[in-house]
């Protein structure tokens, strides 16, 4: 295995100039011989490789949108070295065979570590609990019915109980479907645009239910992509009481608002929908005080034919790997809302700890997952540079600061803009 030396890099937390040594795919204090590769990181900042605990790689079944090869390439471009892919594939990732298939493919063609998330219920149907024990043996790191919230309170209770036998984290997408037959956030703007709205309570009611269930059972639960002020407040209060609840948000919820839907541009259509400016500020507050543990991408590639449509008919979701770091740096760090080190925690150690991935640090002996970024580079994100198969990004044409320049996963260079 290659010996790599990264010199003259600025450490993201300490700010000091450091030299990073990598040998046999792990971080070391020194190299046993001459470096095969010396990377001069003058002017760049070095970070642990980013961890995304919520994305969609679309394989198997939806390779016309994305596949493991292109998805992980896109992830590597965004500085990610570990990604956790949701189970809404075709067939659904609800059994060990599909888990093994994803892992094998990732091993062969992947540009980062792929950790599959299994379905919480068979077929994502919300009826019977899945074979999560067998899936854990095959390699899943969590279960979730993402996109199809667990509607039955009884099933959620069973899922939490059964998953606890295997120490499998449960992630729930909180949405009361009977309240959410809309295309954007419910409010004055949806009314003015004549679009059906998704009220904030559709999310908040299920967050409350999930928290109460977890509290009753004294078991952990992780709430996916929170987007509303009240939802965050419910989680904040629960954490204060000692409930084992964790949660995540996405870059779009702290950088964009429902106002963006004014032109019926479907690149601003996702679920949960973009909320109000007040909600956006609450997401930033939640990240600041630690109520929100993680920033995830919810990378959701869609084919142009599923997006270039009338607003209500278009699919939900946006791609996010390639912009997550820059959007975070631009909207959180540059604005002075949170420190760079705190932001990086939400994209490395926090998700890694919740899912017990053993990633996200640059400690000696750890898998050599590294990212170098130029924090002084301001760039306009363009369609042409996208490595994902899909182009459904709301940030195309946006000026962002903080550009990922090089990514190394497990000691191998997976993305390189330096040469």
């Amino acid at each position, binding site marked *: 295995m290659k010996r790599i030396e990264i010199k003259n890099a600025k450490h993201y937390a300490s700010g000091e100039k450091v030299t990073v040594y990598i040998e046999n795919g792990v971080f070391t204090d020194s190299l046993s011989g001459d470096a095969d590769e010396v990377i001069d990181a003058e002017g760049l900042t070095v970070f642990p490789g980013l961890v995304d605990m919520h994305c969609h790689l679309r394989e198997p079944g939806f390779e016309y949108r994305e596949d493991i090869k292109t998805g992980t390439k896109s992830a590597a471009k965004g500085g990610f070295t570990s990604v956790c892919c949701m189970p809404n594939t075709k067939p659904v990732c609800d059994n060990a065979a599909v888990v093994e298939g994803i892992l094998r493919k990732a091993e062969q063609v992947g540009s980062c570590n792929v950790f599959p998330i299994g379905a919480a219920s068979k077929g994502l149907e919300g009826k019977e609990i899945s074979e999560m024990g067998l899936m854990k043996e095959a390699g899943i790191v969590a279960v979730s019915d993402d996109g199809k919230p667990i509607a039955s309170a009884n099933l959620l209770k069973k899922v939490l109980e059964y998953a606890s036998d295997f120490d499998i984290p449960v992630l729930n997408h909180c949405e009361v479907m009977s309240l959410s*037959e809309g295309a954007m956030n*419910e*409010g*004055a*703007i*949806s*009314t*003015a*645009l*004549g*679009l*059906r*709205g998704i*009220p904030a309570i559709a999310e908040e009611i299920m967050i409350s239910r999930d928290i109460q269930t977890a509290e009753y059972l004294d078991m952990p639960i992780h709430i996916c992509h929170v987007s509303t002020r009240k939802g965050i407040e419910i989680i904040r209060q629960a954490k204060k009481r000692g409930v084992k609840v964790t949660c995540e948000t996405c870059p779009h919820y702290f950088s964009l608002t429902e106002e963006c839907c004014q*032109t*019926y541009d479907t690149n601003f259509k996702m679920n949960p929908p973009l909320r109000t400016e007040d909600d956006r500020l609450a997401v930033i507050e939640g990240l600041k005080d630690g109520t929100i543990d993680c920033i995830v991408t919810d990378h959701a590639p869609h084919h142009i034919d599923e997006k*270039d*449509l*009338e*607003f*209500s*008919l278009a699919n939900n979701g946006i791609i996010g790997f390639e912009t997550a770091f820059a959007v975070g740096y631009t909207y959180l760090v540059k604005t002075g809302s949170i420190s760079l080190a705190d932001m990086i925690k939400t994209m490395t150690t926090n998700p890694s700890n919740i899912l017990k991935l053993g990633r996200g640090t640059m400690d000696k002996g750890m898998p050599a997952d590294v990212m170098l970024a130029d924090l002084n580079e301001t760039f306009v994100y363009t369609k042409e540079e996208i490595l994902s198969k899909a182009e459904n990004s709301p940030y195309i044409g946006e000026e962002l600061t903080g550009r990922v320049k090089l990514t190394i996963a497990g000691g191998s260079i997976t993305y390189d803009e330096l040469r």
Partner: protein
Amino acid sequence: MGLRSKDLLGLKQLTAEEIMEILDTAKMMKMVLTSGNKKTSHLQGKSVVTLFYENSTRTRLSFELASKYMGSASANITTSGSSVNKGESLLDTARTIDMMATDIIIMRHSQSGAPHYLAPRVKASIVNAGDGMNEHPTQALLDMFTLYEKYGHIDGLKVAICGDLYHSRVVRSNVIGLTKLGATVSVAGPRTMVPVGLDKMGCTVCKSVAEAVKDADAVMGLRVQLERQQKSLFPSVAEYSRFYSISEDILKLAKPGAYLLHPGPCNHGVELPTCVYDCDQSVINEQVTNGVAVRMAVLYLLMARRNQNEKN
């Protein structure tokens, strides 16, 4: 002065001056329309296509007659009998029409924003003839024209709009247009049919139909869109007509001589009883005539803008 945009997507996109120009142009068009010879040459050598994904009697026919009176080649497509039934997308359908050298596409679609989506993707001018729950600009223009004719001004009028506010594109366009011209608008309907934040569009949301209608210069009933009801938003037609219809007694709360409007088609006995539909204050039938005049004005102004662009 003319219109600024190549398209008429909604009243949101128009200034008060543009709206007034349309209303003033409609006045002239109404003179043409009610004269012995309706034929003009304003659209001679031009083509107009109506593309309707939803049912329509008044809007489609008035646009078609308007374009024919003005001398254009006109054609219409409806979803049944076109390739839309074979699954052709809105974009492909519109591009096909566009590539036949069409000048103006008049479209109605069940999806809010469908015309906004098409407008930058075709060379033809898009006229929104109703998009989902968003806007129905020419309906509001003809409603305003009707009041403008009666009162000589819109500024200072109090207009009440009652009924299914949630699904109504007519109420949205009217609130936007009337308030841009200085009228005040009060609305009322079952709370289940009042969309969140409607007041932010500039109207007053009232607790009852009586409260909305009180001292109004004009009262507009809205059709209960039974075909759009996904789930029951009111318990029964009987209860709706008892508590939310514009009855004779309710109409008496308006200013004496206040006008009654309705965009049609009307569910008699639901949003208003037949005796109110036919009463002296009702201008529902006049609205239909005005609809042709207003649509002639819209086509005239849009074509004038296109001709201007060609010259430049």
